[in-house]
């Protein structure tokens, strides 16, 4: 069973190219077809670990692995999920410096860099939607966070903790607004 869990998540890790949400359909398919978890359990798992720090694949693997086979299952799932990345990146990193001396490779990355910017912009817009930036206090929080870390040198951890505290305050003062966000909520 542990070996099966490892294999399944290895496959999921291998096919997760370009970030978290890409792997959801793959993962759901794999787990439900073996009747390890139901569709609802998968979605619950993802929405619960979604807000935690860490890559969604890793968090999802830990959560689901535990549901399937306890702590050992969680370890098997997480190792399976990160193993493909480690192997692939170690191979690429070991040849990277030789690669980058080649003019075509340099040209490839010169072309890819502006695309990385476009990609960041894209993910910013998508996350902005799920973070409800149309509400003024959320928009204010985003701008404040940018100014704090980029222009006032506030350490990242301090900024995250302050944002969490402010979120708690808002929840205490106006719980009804947040509940409303939940209803219209998750765009994922």
């Amino acid at each position, binding site marked *: 069973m542990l070996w099966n869990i490892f294999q399944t998540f290895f496959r999921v*890790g*291998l096919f*997760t190219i*370009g*970030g978290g949400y*890409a792997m959801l359909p793959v993962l759901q398919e794999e787990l439900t077809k073996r009747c390890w978890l139901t569709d609802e359990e998968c979605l619950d798992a993802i929405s619960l670990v979604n807000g*935690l*720090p*860490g*890559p969604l*694949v*890793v*968090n999802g693997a*830990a*959560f689901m692995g*535990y*549901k399937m086979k306890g*702590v050992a299952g*969680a370890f098997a799932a*997480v190792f399976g999920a*990160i193993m*493909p*990345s*480690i192997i*692939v*990146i*170690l191979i690429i*990193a070991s040849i990277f410096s030789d690669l980058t001396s080649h*003019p075509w490779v340099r040209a490839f990355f010169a*072309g*890819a*860099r502006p*695309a*990385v*910017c*476009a990609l*960041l*912009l894209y993910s*910013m817009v998508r*996350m*902005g939607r799920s973070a*409800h930036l149309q509400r003024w206090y*959320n*928009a204010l*929080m*985003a701008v404040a*966070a940018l100014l704090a*870390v*980029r222009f006032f040198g506030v350490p*990242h951890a301090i900024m995250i903790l302050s*944002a*969490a*505290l402010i*979120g*708690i305050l*808002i*929840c*205490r003062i106006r719980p009804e607004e*947040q509940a409303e*966000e939940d209803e219209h909520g998750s765009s994922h």
Partner: protein
Amino acid sequence: MDLLTKLCLFFLKAGAFSFGGGYGVLYMLQNEIVYKNRWISARDFVDVVAIAEMTPGPIAVNASTFVGYTLLGPLAGILATLCIVAVPFVLSLSVSIFYQKFKNNCDVRGALKGIRPAVVGLIAAVSLGIAEVSFPDGLSVGIFVLGAVLLFRWKVHPIFVMMISGLTGIVVYAGIWG
């Protein structure tokens, strides 16, 4: 403190604060790896992001393996990766064990809600840093526009956007047609 210990502590911390998925953690990686410690150059960092985007697995995992390997070899690469997933792993496991209690707690929900918009600000911050080294000329602006159109308008998968832009880079910069 030797470099390996420093590296591990940094990636433990980075993992603990990597809210909002891969792009959220990029700010912290960029700030400490490039600007503070100068472990890799600003341009190599963007290339790592591009590679992470085109290879399987979460960006945070890929970037940590890459940086660890570049600095101290394969074992450090693996160690850095284990460090960056350690805290998220423990937290997710705890949520799995105790999740009935967490589910409707106002403080937990509020904290997560407060962090979400802040992460958008973080991504904006990392984008500014990346833009600084990504636009040496007009052609790169053109590629940016092309990438944005592919992503926003045609919903092309990010991996293909990276591929197309990279190949465009080869055509226009290495001049295989000219």
